[in-house]
């Protein structure tokens, strides 16, 4: 009955440098949402995407960047909601078309929640959001076998702020390309 056995000491790995949480480059901010029908959730406040002027030819077709720029890799949800809004549906339509064009690409849908809920419930809520995105893509021609889902709950916010604007950003479903894009790479951890 050791209280603090030697084996525990060897496992007490101290070290704040956790390589696994590094993020990729900043991606397109959430799009401006036009005035929608009444049931639409509040749009995430954001600036419109500005196409990079220095690249008149645009991203390489089929690349991760092409997916992010031409389709958009993140949709937003209302508080405690997991239904796809019309704005989110438009982005998912573009994702589905893009994914049909590049059938070798596989994706992981990551469901995220804001911090205004408790950890375990929000993990389940994020899973429900990820599933809603997967179901939508599958219903629009993307084979379900190409799509995995995960929930990060409120563990991986993209906006560190406090308040409605930050929380709106953090309630989202993110589509991460896991393999098959032209030129390789991934938009993992993209914000």
């Amino acid at each position, binding site marked *: 009955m*050791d209280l603090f056995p*030697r084996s525990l000491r060897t496992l007490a790995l101290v070290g704040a440098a956790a390589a696994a949480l590094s993020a990729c480059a900043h991606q397109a901010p959430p799009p401006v949402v036009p005035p929608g029908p009444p049931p639409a959730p509040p749009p995430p406040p954001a600036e419109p995407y500005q196409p990079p002027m220095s690249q008149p030819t645009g991203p390489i077709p089929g690349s991760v960047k092409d997916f992010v720029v031409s389709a958009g890799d993140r949709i937003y949800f209302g508080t405690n909601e997991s239904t796809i809004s019309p704005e989110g549906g438009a982005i998912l339509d573009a994702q589905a078309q893009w994914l049909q064009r590049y059938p070798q690409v596989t994706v992981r849908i990551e469901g995220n929640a804001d911090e205004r809920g408790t*950890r375990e419930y929000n993990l389940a809520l994020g899973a429900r959001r990820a599933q809603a995105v997967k179901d939508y893509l599958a219903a629009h021609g993307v084979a379900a076998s190409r799509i995995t889902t995960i929930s*990060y709950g409120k563990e*991986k916010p993209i906006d560190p702020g406090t308040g409605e604007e930050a929380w709106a950003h953090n309630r989202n479903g993110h589509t991460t390309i896991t393999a098959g894009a032209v030129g390789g790479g991934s938009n993992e951890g993209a914000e």
Partner: protein
Amino acid sequence: MRLTKLTASAFILGALLVGGAPGLTPAVRAQPVEVDINKGTIQPLPIAIPAFSGTDPKTTELGAQIAQVVSADLGRSGFFRPLDPSTFVEKSLNVNINPNFPVWKQINAQALIDGQASLDADGRLRVVFRLWDVFNGTQLIGTELTASPDTYRRIAHKIADAVYKRMTGEDGYFDTHIVFVAEAGPKTHRVKRLAIMDQDGANPSYLTDGAHVIMTPRFASNDQEITYSDLSRDAAKVYVFNIETGRRETVGQFAGAMAFASRFSPDGSKIALTVERNGDSNLYLVDLHSGGTQKLTADRAINTSPSFSPDGGKIVFNSDRGGSPQIYVMNSDGTNIHRISFGSGRYTTPVWSPKGDLIAATRQTGNTFHIVVMNPDGSGERVITSSFLDEGPTWAPNGRVLMFSRETPGAGQRLWTVDVSGRNEHEVPYPGGATDPAWSPLLK
């Protein structure tokens, strides 16, 4: 350091039979000093805890620190009011001589603890202490403990537990551990490690390296095993980690599904947890010996945060099957599911008290979070905290105190304690971000 080898038999706690103890039959006795912890309002008992004496500079220093730890424990409990040592006439007492009671009465000390630290020939620390009823001039406790000198804080916690029990009639909760999630770094790149520390925030150590997000660690009733959830970029798994052996095992085989929100059954033989498939989260029971699994709920909804009643017969959990997150109770075989929370707002993270008399939970009303307690049938709900974000209560082993995590915008996340009455809020002095606390049983 804290990770010293220390066997359960290392602590020797025995009643002292030392000459010079006061007579027990005074002609006229005042009302014996005691603390009634069930009264509506608590009058904290004034108690004097001078530095324990030593036999050399090292033991004198340890004696002073032990007195400080005992004083801090008893003061935080809310049932005692440790008196300012600068008012003491006798600065350090000889445990073999009766205290000079009149000088302690002068500063209105109702109880007095004196003690002495010394080193045995084999290097072990020996601490003798006595608890005195100042007004009656009687000894209430006379005990000695021995242990390795580097565990002097545990000696102090055991002394505080003995005093708490003698004065309140209930077990203490000071010689206990907290498992929790240590949080570091900015919100968008937070590192979350499994950590363990003493109940008062001392001696933290870290059990994972931060590569994965650690969530909701909980003790088994034997205080040697922890279950927790581990979130990586593409999986969520539940583990059991044995502190004694360092061995870590995955709980259950749920291929392609997320597993999280685990908790031991009271006998330690099973784990209740949440398994998410196709967007639905349901509760399962995993037998740790056979590996067999039993599905407890089958619902197109969220069912999570299971917590057993102390007798193992029931499970309280969180579900939004009725449209919003509320608290439900069922038999631990999944039958007789019924809702018990009916207040406004959203209820999550229910946890059954170790005495079985109450269920604590998180409740969100508007943009305010509360810790609440209610009877197991949902009646008698009381709101005991309110803030921007209070979450995830855990019970002290005596069912008198709750610890929870509180986020204050701009100031990060800290652990706090509060009496089940709602009084006596204290921040746990762990020097960093911390969430998801779980209280151990009293250590052996």
